[in-house]
């Protein structure tokens, strides 16, 4: 069969389509975005009416996915790692209710923080919810895991957490597809579905059911072809790898391993296979992310075995693994013939020339200067976060999506003036609207700038949920119409923009300023299309 050159993300999307997917629910986030985009661009998906429109945030996405699963259909829900924090309430409780149609929840983690504010390892979340986790080591495995994963989810009766990392998501390799399956038909849970009503009396039973299911999950891991033990007579050191760490190990042993190796790609940990590895005097754990398995092994074995990994400093505690870092630990250090010449300067990302966010910050900076050190600008996540860098240095915070409005509120409550929030349009609808309601309810003196480029730019220009309706949304939430001000962020409007910002800062209540000009990248793409 022909091999297709797929990104890990694309392999996952194609596998879902081939396995009878009925809908994908997601909010964009690097490195997960291309999965949903692939399905959105698939003519086959369109023809079959497969749901693929972006959700407003990860929580709404996961809840809708659970609903589609309740109705018997196979559903995929995708997000970047921090997205699972937003969806956590649904995630933890979907582990209590269980599923009906197969449900795969994909988390794309970003160790080394190529495009993220932290490098949390969502296997911890999977363990917290006590759900089975799959972690592919290559693109073909990613395809196969999704193709078979819906069936696994249906057989076990629980959602499956599929964890990938940046290098899996954004690396291409040849992938073989398998035969297409039809979608499930509409059906409701056969057991009456009482388990979806998590009243305490039912929830207690469901929790016991989840605890009982752990044994089944472990047996599934032990039987899984994704977990594999490679024996070797050299029992001085056994090596355990998870996910793509297996590749970095293999890279260092092109002619075959010299130690026993246990490759883990399905969790909970397969106890029986781990027992085999404990025949070794010492164990080295290679995992991409937190020392999740390393910590578990220490408790799990309780036999005073020597475990090496990120916790004892054998490997660096943070950052992604590389073939070099893995080789070094095993005494196979790679050497460079050349170093980076001193003349090479850093080239950080920057706001595009001609971007409207630039004009917003230029005007805002001048007004803020008039208030001296007292003025605080709380910002948020998106292209406009690059306003933190020179020449702008315009913002004081970027924590999690939506936090600019609520942090400004808290600071204003503490007496800070002026308390300003700068937030993007997609971030506003993702998680800013509820915070705005808090401000309105207390008439908090905050000035909120929704820098509206009519797209979700940072992740590549996806549709933004509130485009064309931001004023109406703000008004609906209760902001006084005369304090909702719209302006086009262009040089010729600087004076007007400055006046407007000044006026709204001086108004001691909630005001929303919407500088609106389309993202120049999406504009360019439309012109070339």
């Amino acid at each position, binding site marked *: 069969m022909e091999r297709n*050159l797929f*990104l890990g993300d694309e392999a996952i999307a194609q596998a879902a389509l081939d396995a009878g997917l009925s809908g994908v629910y997601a909010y964009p986030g690097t490195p997960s975005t291309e999965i949903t985009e692939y399905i959105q661009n698939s003519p086959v998906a369109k023809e079959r009416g497969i749901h693929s429109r972006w959700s407003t945030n990860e929580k709404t996405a996961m809840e809708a996915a659970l609903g589609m699963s309740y109705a018997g259909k196979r559903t995929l829900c995708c997000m970047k790692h921090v997205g699972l924090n937003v969806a956590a309430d649904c995630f933890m409780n979907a582990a209590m209710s269980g599923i009906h149609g197969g449900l795969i929840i994909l988390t794309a983690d970003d160790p080394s923080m190529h495009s993220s504010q932290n490098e949390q390892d969502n296997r911890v979340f999977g363990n917290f919810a006590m759900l089975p986790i799959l972690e592919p080591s290559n693109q073909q495995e990613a395809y196969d895991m999704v193709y078979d994963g819906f069936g696994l989810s249906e057989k076990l009766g629980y959602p499956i957490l599929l964890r990938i990392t940046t290098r899996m998501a954004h690396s*291409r390799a040849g992938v073989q597809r398998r035969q297409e399956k039809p979608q499930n038909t509409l059906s409701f849970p056969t057991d009456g579905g009482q388990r979806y009503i998590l009243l305490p009396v039912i929830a207690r039973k469901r929790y016991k059911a989840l605890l009982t299911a752990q044994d089944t999950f472990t047996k599934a891991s032990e039987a899984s072809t994704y977990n594999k033990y490679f024996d070797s007579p050299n029992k001085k050191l056994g090596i355990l790898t998870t996910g793509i760490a297996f590749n970095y190990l293999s890279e260092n042993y092109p002619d075959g391993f010299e130690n026993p190796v246990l490759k883990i790609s399905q969790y909970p940990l397969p106890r029986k296979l781990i027992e085999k590895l404990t025949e070794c005097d010492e164990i080295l754990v290679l995992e991409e992310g937190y020392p999740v398995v390393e910590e578990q092994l220490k408790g799990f074995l309780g036999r005073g075995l020597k475990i090496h990994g990120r916790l004892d400093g054998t490997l660096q505690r943070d950052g992604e693994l590389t073939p070099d870092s893995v080789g070094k630990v095993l005494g196979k250090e790679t050497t460079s*013939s050349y170093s980076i010449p001193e*003349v*090479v300067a850093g080239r950080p990302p920057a706001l595009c020339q001609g971007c409207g966010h630039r004009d917003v910050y230029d005007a805002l900076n001048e007004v803020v200067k008039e208030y001296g050190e007292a003025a605080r600008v709380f910002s948020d996540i998106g292209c406009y976060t690059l306003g933190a860098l020179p020449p702008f240095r315009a913002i004081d915070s970027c924590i999690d999506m939506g936090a600019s409005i609520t942090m400004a509120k808290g600071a204003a409550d503490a007496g800070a003036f002026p308390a300003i929030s700068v937030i993007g349009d997609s971030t506003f609808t993702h998680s800013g609207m509820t915070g705005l309601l808090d401000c309105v309810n207390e008439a908090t003196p905050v000035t909120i700038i929704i820098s509206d480029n009519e797209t979700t730019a940072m992740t*590549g220009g996806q549709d933004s949920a509130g485009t064309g309706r931001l004023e109406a949304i703000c008004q609906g939430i209760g902001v006084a119409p005369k304090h909702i001000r719209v302006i086009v962020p262009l040089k010729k409007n600087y004076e007007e923009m400055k006046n407007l910002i000044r006026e709204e800062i001086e108004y001691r209540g909630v005001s929303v300023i919407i500088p609106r000009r389309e993202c120049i990248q999406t504009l360019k793409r439309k012109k070339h299309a």
Partner: protein
Amino acid sequence: MKIDIILAGVGGQGILSIAAVIGEAALKEGLYMKQAEVHGMSQRGGDVQSNLRLSDRPIASDLIPKGQADLIISLEPMESLRYLPYLKKDGWVVTNSVPFINIPNYPEIDKVEAELDKLPHKVVLDVESIAKEAGSARSANIVILGAATPFLGIDYTKIEEGICRIFARKGEDIVNQNLKALKAGYDAAGQGA
């Protein structure tokens, strides 16, 4: 056969199209390949690179180990230097000579050139001018691919076929423009080397 390539440039310059063409050709040749790309934040005008690995045997790591790249293909001179720790001692650097200056502290260009001069194996070309002369101003990335073709271990004609397949969707004109750009880069490198 095994070849490890680092593609370098600045976000937006089009290194991923180069990778797509090579990948397409390699897959048709029945080679294994892995190609790690950078998406996301750095695409906003930051430094970007892609690790491209081709082999007639299965490839383990998506990332190239240090000191092991056979080739660095770069659309920007300073960016070609950033990945030197990954270059093999006898590896080649094929780079555009025209700087892309979007940072205030971009070094003086003679200093960058001096560093390139020190390398034993390099091809340094003004790909933008070559692209313009070939009537394919928007195909600078394919010019540099043409210049790098002799080092790929894949036949020139297979790369041409890769271009035809990758750009087919965009129409015959675009395909021809890119074929011309490929040839112009190939010829220019041949004369220089």
